[in-house]
């Protein structure tokens, strides 16, 4: 073994960290507003949401599946929360519990249908995306819940640490640690990963793969619902269009963060902190591109180029380290 290079350096996370730092340098030098308090605060809020959405997708990618219904699910849960608080007058804390339970339940439906029918989750969640979003618009008649308790909406605009950081970011980072703990230090987490990596072998080793897959979908629903609540707190209302038509607006960050973070689409690998760094990287670039003023219409173009560059770079790093480890 080549002991001179610590293992961490060979990981995808390290590459991401370097990229994040490089981009921070670039943007700090080349733009005026990047380091402003307002901008950092705004960034922290966007990052918080992107991390959560990325994690929600990551736990389903773990099973080798996808969750296209993520956005629709998150918005449905958020609308449910809005209804609880505004129409039913349920206290905030209980509402949050109910919303998370509701999100988990919708995730359970995704998981149950996927497992029981054997249809790929891509198709199942494509359909449930339409169904959840449809029911949500039908039941709410596309009306937003705008009169939420102030304590709740104030939380979304709270500014911590000398007004640099949103508390939402703290929630997301905490969630990362909890997930990391679950996957690294619990029986259930290990089983989730094993089931995702090789369902047949896991099943024969005494793991109930179906149940694990359902858990993953439930966890995804839970995290999406959490993201929904966070977004509601952030914009101060539960709005049917807050994740775009059919919740599509969430899909891009949902894929970008785990994919950049090194999660395998074929399943069996989780990278909690990779996903976090991936989300940070994307948000940074997005923000920086706006600040550099490449022209709003070219932002997506550069985002695409940078995404492509990042995956190619990662591939090169992999190639390099694999070569390294054979030689040593």
């Amino acid at each position, binding site marked *: 073994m080549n002991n001179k290079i610590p293992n961490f350096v060979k990981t995808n996370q390290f590459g991401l960290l370097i990229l994040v730092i490089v981009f*921070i*340098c670039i943007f*700090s*030098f080349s*733009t*005026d*507003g*990047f*380091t*402003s*308090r*307002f*901008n*950092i605060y*705004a960034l922290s809020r*966007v990052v918080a*949401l992107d991390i959560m959405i990325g994690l929600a997708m990551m736990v389903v990618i773990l099973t080798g599946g996808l969750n296209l219904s993520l956005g629709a699910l998150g918005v449905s849960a958020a609308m449910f929360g809005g209804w609880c608080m505004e129409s039913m007058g349920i206290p905030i804390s209980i509402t949050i519990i109910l919303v998370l339970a509701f999100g988990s339940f919708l995730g359970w439906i995704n998981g149950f249908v996927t497992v029981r029918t054997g249809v790929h989750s891509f198709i199942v969640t494509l359909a449930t995306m339409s169904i959840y979003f449809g029911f949500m*618009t039908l039941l709410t*008649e*596309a*009306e*937003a819940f*705008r009169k939420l308790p102030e304590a709740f*909406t104030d939380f*979304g*605009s709270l500014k911590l*640490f*000398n007004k*640099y*950081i949103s508390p939402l970011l703290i929630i997301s980072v905490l969630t990362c640690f909890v997930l990391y703990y679950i996957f690294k230090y619990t029986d259930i987490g290990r089983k989730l990963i094993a089931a995702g990596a090789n369902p047949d072998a896991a099943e024969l080793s005494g793991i109930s793969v179906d149940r694990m897959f359902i858990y993953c979908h439930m966890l995804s629903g839970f995290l999406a619902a959490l993201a929904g609540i966070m*977004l509601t707190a*952030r*914009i*101060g*209302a539960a*709005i*049917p*269009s*807050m994740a*775009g*038509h059919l919740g599509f*607006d969430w899909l891009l960050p949902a894929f970008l963060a785990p994919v950049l973070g090194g999660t395998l689409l074929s399943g069996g690998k989780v990278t909690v902190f990779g996903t976090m760094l991936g989300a940070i990287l994307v948000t940074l670039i*997005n*923000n920086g591109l*706006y*600040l550099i*003023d490449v022209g*709003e*219409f070219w*932002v*997506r173009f550069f985002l695409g180029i940078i995404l492509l560059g990042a995956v190619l770079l990662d591939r090169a790093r992999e190639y390099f380290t694999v070569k390294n480890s054979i030689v040593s």
Partner: protein
Amino acid sequence: MKKFIIFLTSFFALLVSPVFAGGHGVTKVALVPGGPHPYFAAWEQAGLDAVEDFGLGKADYRVPAEWDLSQQNELIESLVGQGYNAVLVFPGDAVGTNKILGELDDAGIPTAALAGCVEQPTQAKFCFGTDTGHSAYLGTKELIKALGGKGKIAHFTGFLVDPNTTLRINAVEQAVSEAGGGVEIIQVIADIDAYEPADEKINAFMAAQGSEVDGIVTTAWVPAVVAAQALTNMGDKRIKMVGIDHDEVVLKAIKDGYVHGTMLQNPYGQGYIGSYVMDKVRQGCEFKADAPWKSTAQTDQFIDSGTVFVDISDVDTYVMAMRGISLEILETFDSTYLNCPS
């Protein structure tokens, strides 16, 4: 390097180092629509003209690359970093946008809602635009008049999740109910804010109900274009249609007689006057306590940028008519609405 060190220290150690301070000096206005849409295109020239005419520092048209509330928020947030100190927004959401407007206001950056309103309570200074519900109501009235007070009509509109859509649906219903039973809405088709689904659904409607329906009212840009196109292609002059906005296709269909008329709004005037007012606000002007605000379903600090109904008789001259309305608002604006420090 120094800046970077400052950044790192502030980001990681969270030390005190306020880099940004609210602006004085020249006014730099950003005009931010909800997303890319031809309706707002006139804002660009309006902003440039305002810079020239009123001596602003900047009045730039900045478009979120997509119709997406969070993209719009991210853009607006980044505008502050770029040094803009006044923002005119078409709200991505009537409520959801309030939060960011409040934060801008707290940072000393005045904002106003342009073309569409945010719902109160809000920290936006005012709303300058078209009352979407009222416009739909007037358009339907015009249609009913053209139909002679009776007939079957259809209503094509935009995304269901857009709260304005619900306002429009209600407004059309109200106009119909006031027509006294002679008019009936036989179908509402929504969720057609993109050309391809709109084309499919509107044509399917024409095929199924084309012989029954007497009138069509459209209350969103894309459905208006597609429906005008469909009527033109069919060569049908029996069905009366009232559209919205000034897309070339709709205007041409009016000239050719396939579309009865359209409800025009005043995007140029919105951008031009809006930029002007933001400059005034930044110079310390206050709105008069007794300013003649109008009230809408969403806000009671509304200034109408003007809506005109255009049909074949004035389709060639509407630009002048619009300009007239704009100038009229501009001329009397200071005296009607503002108290400025001398």
